[in-house]
């Protein structure tokens, strides 16, 4: 499959602090893929993303985006890309529609219908309201649709659901999934496991500026888990738990007697959670939201 982003031996050191934020990083993202950078804050996720977007300059190694080295791209790069930061950057004195129209004017491409965009994120009835009266969730939603109104081929989201309540987070996740169905490529960063699990085709674990492992969430969870089934049941008023090997469940008499004779309360397969894998591989915790 065609690679939209290919990063080779990428390194970057902040001049002011002398901190090496990105250290020999290698990865690639295919066309139509949702790729997630997962890691604790300060791991270098955002720095890498910003290097690819072109907000920070002075890297070594190579970043090839849509077939061209990033440093050789002109501003036309942004005709094909959409960016949404983790903080809503909006003109507070302008209305929702004015905010979209103002930015839309800078693209050569014709942008999507503004009312339709606002409707998608439930802001249509607020289109002529000034943004300073919006709640944080509304601002984030508006900020988010702004990044996709010119139908970019490649999108960057930095912590797309950070600080949002479950309802707003759900709206955002839905839109990202729709982008994926429409065949767009998405590169996001997050420290939220469930976001990574629900959205990403592949994730990369990032710690101290390096990628520790890359893979699909599902395959990582199976690979690093055990093939056991955990059964919870009640016996004489007490709650008990037992582990059984999944390979031999059908012939395991112990298991069959529990299932047949006891009151079963819960059944869990023991694949690892992304959080477990992260701790196992890096010795570090992701920060819980």
């Amino acid at each position, binding site marked *: 499959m065609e690679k939209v982003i290919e990063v080779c031996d990428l390194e970057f050191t902040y001049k002011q602090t002398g901190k090496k934020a990105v250290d020999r990083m290698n990865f690639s993202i295919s066309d139509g893929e949702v790729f997630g950078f997962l890691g604790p804050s300060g791991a270098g996720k955002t720095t890498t993303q910003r290097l690819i*977007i072109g*907000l*920070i300059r002075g890297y070594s190694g190579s970043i090839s985006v849509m077939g061209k080295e990033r440093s050789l791209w002109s501003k036309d790069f942004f005709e094909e*890309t959409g960016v949404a930061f983790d903080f*809503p950057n909006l*003109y507070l004195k302008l209305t929702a529609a004015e905010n979209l129209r*103002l*930015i839309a*004017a*800078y693209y050569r491409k014709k942008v999507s219908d503004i009312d339709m965009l606002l409707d998608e994120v439930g802001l249509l009835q607020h289109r002529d309201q000034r943004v300073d009266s919006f709640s944080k969730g509304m601002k984030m939603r508006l900020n988010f649709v702004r990044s996709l109104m010119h139908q970019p081929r490649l999108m960057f989201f930095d912590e797309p659901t950070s600080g949002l309540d479950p309802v707003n987070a759900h709206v955002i996740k839905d839109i990202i999934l729709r982008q994926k169905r429409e065949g767009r490529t998405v590169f996001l960063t997050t420290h939220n496991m469930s976001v990574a699990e629900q959205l990403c085709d592949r994730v990369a674990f990032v710690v101290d500026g390096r990628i520790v492992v890359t893979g699909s969430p599902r395959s990582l969870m199976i690979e690093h888990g055990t093939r056991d089934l955990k059964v919870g049941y009640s016996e004489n008023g007490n709650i008990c738990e037992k582990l059984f090997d999944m390979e031999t469940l059908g012939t395991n008499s112990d298991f069959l007697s529990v299932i047949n004779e006891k009151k079963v309360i819960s059944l869990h397969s023991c694949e690892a959670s992304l959080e477990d894998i992260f701790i196992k591989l890096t010795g570090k915790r992701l920060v819980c939201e």
Partner: protein
Amino acid sequence: MRVVNAFFSDMLFMFKQGFFTVYVIVIGIYSVILSFLPDDIAPMATALTVFSDPSVLGLFFIGGVIMLEKGQGVLYVLVTTPLRSREYLLSKILALTVLALLSSFAIAVMSTHVRVNWLLFALSVALTSSFFTMCGVIISASCRNVNEYMLRMVPYMILFVLPCFSLLGFPFSWLFLAIPSVAALKLLLGAYSGISPMLAASLLLYLALLSYLLFRFTLRVFERKIVFND
């Protein structure tokens, strides 16, 4: 096209922030005061008023505009659109210069009825305005708040305003024409009291060249300190 769109949104922004309203009041006050002056000094006083207020308003406002866009984060969104930094700056300079021209003309027209070389007047105001607006961009690049901005404006004022007194005339005062603000004031006064075409043309050329070089420099400072912050 992008720069035109940027220009119109900057004008809209300035309008919403009340720039035009304030300048209507400012123009009114100046016109009242100037109309009180005796006829022999009114033209010169008008030229000096235009030079000291409307034509340098860019310096006063650009810092606030850039710091606000930086603070609200919209600058970082503009950076991720196809809008080029040079287009961003150009549109801001143009918008403020249009405001400068409009208010300068209003003051000049309402205050005196002498013959004025309007072309020279407009060119001199436009060059002064863009020059000082660019200074404002450079100052704001390293400022965190308005008070700091106002303080950092002072050295520029001293450097560019004080030498203007050289036009009162003393030996070697022509040397001061190398300072852009003095050259611009010389042109503006020339629009009222006459100036040799040769001198006017060379001063205009000189200021245009300086503005171009300053624009290149401003662009570099803007990208280095505001856009990439490296």
